[in-house]
């Protein structure tokens, strides 16, 4: 394997995570990762070394998912988030409380409409900058920002307590 492929192997866990945000389904997510890897390898010449491989592959993955959903339209039937099988391991009572909170945020994230879900996931979960996230989604930064704000407000409002002030 060359450095490109090695880096890709190291990215697999994060690709799988972003796949779950996109598909909201474990096995669909892994199928999508596989398609993404195959496309990325075919397009190695389109990647500029020195730039972020993660953003580049997230973008390929997002487009692969668009193709996939077009192919099976019925997918728009809303998947109950619980059915997505987001596992919460129970290792240790000490961490239980904290994990519950993470699980709540995860659940609310998965309930967001797709455009907000992807914006929130790229910035808050994947830690991309606004500019990088906008390039993954191929939208202007302003669009990304407003999706991000709406998604965040929705999560906070649903998690109760003091929501958005505005």
């Amino acid at each position: 394997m060359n450095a490109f492929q090695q880096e890709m192997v190291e990215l697999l866990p994060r690709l799988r995570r972003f796949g779950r945000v996109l598909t909201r389904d474990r096995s669909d997510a892994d199928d999508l990762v596989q398609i993404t890897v195959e496309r990325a390898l075919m397009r190695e010449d389109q990647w500029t070394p020195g730039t972020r491989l993660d953003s580049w592959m997230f973008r390929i993955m997002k487009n692969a998912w668009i193709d996939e959903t077009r192919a099976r339209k019925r997918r728009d039937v809303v998947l109950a988030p619980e059915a997505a099988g987001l596992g919460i391991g129970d290792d240790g009572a000490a961490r239980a409380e904290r994990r519950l909170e993470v699980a709540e945020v995860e659940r609310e994230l998965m309930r967001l409409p797709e455009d907000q879900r992807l914006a929130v996931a790229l910035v808050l979960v994947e830690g991309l900058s606004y500019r990088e996230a906008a390039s993954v989604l191929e939208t202007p930064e302003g669009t990304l920002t407003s999706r991000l704000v709406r998604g965040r407000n929705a999560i906070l409002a649903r998690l109760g307590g003091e929501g958005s002030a505005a």
Partner: protein
Amino acid sequence: MSKITDEMIARYVDGELDAEGVAAVDAAVAADPALGARIVRESHLRAVAARALGDVLTEPVPERLRQAVEASARSAEIIKLDFKKPRGGPVAPAPAKPSRLPAWAAAAACLVVGLLVAQAFGMIRTKPFETAPRAGQPASAALTVALDRKLSGEAGLVHVGFSFRDSGGQACRTFQIDRTAGVACRREQGWSVRMAADAPTAPPGGRGDYRMAASATPPAVLEAVDVMIVGEPLDRPQEIAARKAGWK
């Protein structure tokens, strides 16, 4: 009411706001506790969301996915070989590294800014422990913003006490966030928290009493500074110069 928009709050928490905006938010927070609470909540969300779906990162990657990379790699190499003869040695695919996660997890921890201090903010409302900035950890986005841009004594959620240089000549600053006080020093990659301790009282926040800053610093922090400091604390002009130079 303040004219701080949702977008400004998001950018503030995500470290995407320019210096002018940060100053505006800090000023508004000083006059509007509800806004402060909102920012704490947003920071906490950021910290928690950074751990969302974390299980995926630690579970083994299915073999078929690793094979997808390697298999395509192999056919790609063969095609290359057909076109231009060897560019190196034999092309036997290297065995994949068995370890997958730890290196990644560490990288993620560094990438995900906002975590530690956002947690520190979170502690205002929730559990005290998992939240505070800890010694040896990189500073989060919010702390970084404050350490980079604020002069000592300025109001805001993060309070910077004073600045000094350590034996390596690097800039260090004392800080306090809610009930956690500490010292962070500038390293090549950013600010690193060198020590952190519980602080008995909330930071002086918002009343312009900045000469109080040093005397309000908890004794544990002052002791740490004593060990680290070379020379005197920076005075205001030195601090401004250091800020201009990026604290290098």
